[in-house]
């Protein structure tokens, strides 16, 4: 089966109502080209899972693609301020903000990777997060110790991860911080990889132990240079300050639609290159 597909085809894998988890962290290596395509395809009622998100979550909230967000932190960093569209959606009751500690997202994904319905979590033993959320339950330790908090597993239908290098089979190498991407790739039912570069299989074979996501877990590979922009991508580019600042200043869906249109050529450029080479 041919895994290298267009961005449109890859995002076509995602259904309305799916649980979707994004790679990267806040302003770093978020799969932004894929996120923009999700918005262009008007996906609805997505249930987003991420330890700490920023423009990925905020943009989809702005475009009414989101039903719920399970996360520990949703905000840009200090310099760029708060995630206005996410906040507004939650405050108006359109989006369910399921607050976690970042670690309980990690544990919920570990549960999914092991295919168990819940995971015990240490640490979360006080406060209102326990009382207000049905995905945390405190139980007696069946082996007789202290009470244990359980977090319900989060099994994403689709993981979307942007990497620096991937071959046509989907074998992916992440340079720099991997954040929770390896875990997400194991927890999700399907994996979409967008990549800065499609590298020859001979190259991944030479570095087999460096492969972070083995190709057999990957359902679609899309060649998208600058696919994390305006987030940063280690060894490739820094944050695109102009684009990010412009987005943060936007208030209406119309403005954001224009913003998405402005990225179309860039987001689809890799497909033509990939078509030529492969």
């Amino acid at each position, binding site marked *: 089966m041919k895994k290298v597909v267009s961005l449109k085809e890859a995002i076509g894998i995602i259904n309305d109502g799916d649980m979707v988890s994004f790679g990267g*962290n*806040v*302003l*770093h290596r978020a799969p932004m080209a894929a996120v923009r395509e999700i918005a262009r395809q008007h996906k609805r009622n997505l249930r987003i899972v991420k*330890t*700490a998100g920023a423009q990925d979550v905020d943009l989809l909230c702005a475009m009414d693609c989101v039903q719920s967000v399970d*996360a*520990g*932190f*949703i*905000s840009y*960093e*200090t*310099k*760029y301020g*708060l*995630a206005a569209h*996410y*906040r507004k959606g*939650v*405050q108006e*009751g359109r989006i369910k*903000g399921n*607050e*976690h*500690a*970042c*670690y*309980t997202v*990690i544990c919920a994904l570990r549960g999914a990777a092991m295919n168990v319905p819940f995971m015990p*979590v*240490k*640490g*979360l*033993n*006080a*406060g*209102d*997060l326990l009382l*207000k959320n049905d995905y945390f339950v405190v139980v007696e330790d069946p082996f007789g110790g202290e009470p244990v908090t359980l977090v319900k597993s989060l099994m994403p239908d689709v993981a979307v991860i942007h990497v620096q290098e991937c071959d046509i089979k989907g074998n992916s190498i992440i340079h*720099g*911080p*991997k*954040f*929770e991407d390896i*875990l997400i790739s194991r927890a999700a039912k399907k994996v979409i990889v967008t990549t800065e570069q499609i590298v020859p299989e001979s190259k991944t074979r030479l570095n087999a132990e460096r492969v972070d996501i083995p190709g057999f877990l990957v359902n679609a590979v899309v060649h998208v240079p600058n696919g994390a922009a305006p987030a*940063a991508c*280690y*060894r490739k580019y820094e*944050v695109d*300050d102009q684009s990010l600042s412009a987005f943060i200043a936007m208030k209406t869906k119309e403005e954001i639609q224009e913003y998405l249109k402005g990225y179309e050529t860039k987001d689809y450029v890799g497909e033509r290159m990939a078509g030529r080479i492969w």
Partner: protein
Amino acid sequence: MVNTDYRISDIMTCAIANMLRDGETVFHGVSSHLPMVAMMLAKSLHAPDLVHLNIPGGVNPGSIHKSSYSSAGSDLLASAESYFPLEQVFDLSMRGKLDVAFLGGIQFDIDGNINASVIGDYHKPKVRLPGGAGSAVLIPTAKKAIIWRTKHDKRTFVENVDFVTTRGNLWRIVTPLCVFEFRNGKLHLESIHPNSSLDEVRENTGFELLYDEIKYTEPPSKQELTMLKKIDPHDYRSIEF
């Protein structure tokens, strides 16, 4: 008299640095430039064997010069000595081996409750805040949690928080006016910064001030200010001001 040798961000950074001991394992998260600089300062002066942990997983970054817009960027790994990613930092804390965690928050009360979640009702909030990130598991499990907040007013230090995101091993809260210490289940005024006064702290705090004696925070030393220029030449410690 206004002292022009140092600013509030310098006082807070140095005060925090002086809370850190040599050899401790210390973690900071996202949007955390001020504690990140404080950790580098401590490591450069009295705590060379402090272990600097962070979200991208760079253990003991050699430099923070490139951390302009993010305290969770790849630059911290690029200059590090080894890789120890976030999920392992959490696991470390669960095993009781994280000495200090730096965390934020929006509201605090005298009982040491911390709110980083919502103002108003959790399910239909008046204000949805960014969320506690690691707080809800790190504040109960790290040996000492230090909170810094660049605002000190009656909306921040309140009688009762709107929502208890977490509570636990809170040790200190550092503000532009003072340092609070959490002991015997209550926040106590530990020291007043040289730029502030007891009256100013009282006027801006929504709960009764508890203290045994009035102490003042040590002002930044010449050595500290010189070192700050070297490790933080772009003044990231002031980004929140």
